[in-house]
């Protein structure tokens, strides 16, 4: 019984989005060259991950704050997650669980 609770707890921890970090699979220069035509928010997120990763979602959000001020638009976590999902699919970013 106790073992089963421990397994449940481990599973919960591994799927906790706060514990997930993201690393770049290519250099910042390569990543930005590939994403040259992307929107500035995408490039800001990619640069933060490739240059300073592994980073958590919260740390990535902090990196987007200057852009949030520059654009006058609130950038929330689901939006950031959506962009990272595309980078993972495109092989630019790795998700560390």
């Amino acid at each position, binding site marked *: 019984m106790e073992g089963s609770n421990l397994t449940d707890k481990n599973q919960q921890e591994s799927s906790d989005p706060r514990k997930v970090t993201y690393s770049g699979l290519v250099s910042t220069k390569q990543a*930005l060259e590939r994403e*040259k*035509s*992307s*929107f*500035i*928010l*995408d*490039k*800001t997120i990619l*640069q933060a991950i490739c240059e300073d990763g592994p980073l958590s979602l919260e740390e990535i959000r902090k990196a987007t704050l200057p*852009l949030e001020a*520059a*654009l*006058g*638009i*609130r*950038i*929330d976590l689901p*939006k950031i997650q*959506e*962009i990272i999902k595309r980078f993972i699919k495109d092989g630019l970013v790795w998700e560390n669980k």
Partner: protein
Amino acid sequence: MARFFSRKDPGKDYLNKVVIGLGVGLVKSRKLLNLSFGPQGAMDVLSVWIGQEIAKELLRQKKIRVNISEQELIEKLLEEIRMAEELSFETEDGKSIITIQNCLICPKRVGGYDLEGETACPVGGIIMGAITFVKGESPSLPNINLKPGEYCRISLDLAK
């Protein structure tokens, strides 16, 4: 698929020329200005503010209302600022995909400038700025995916 065409109105061409000049100016001065994310990054920031100002004016002139849908707002932008000759909407995986065709504010296609492998497209930023201004503090931010060429494809998530 829905398609919308812009009406010809040469009297409105000055705004197009302003945007073309801004785009090519950013490309040509990118080293001097030391733009962190290139001319496209600079254009993105500037065009979001341009989009907000255009939306503000459309509201002031009562050409749009705050409860306008994103799709209707984009159609209005096409008509009012002659952003492109043609815009089409399709639904793909629950997302509205907007395809810009024959863009009329492209420094390369319309202006005829060599952009030296760079892009300086204001369309995504203008759309994002206009939507966020009209929809308030927490709009559904469009996912802007620019594939440069004669047919620029911009993906917008209008699901929220």
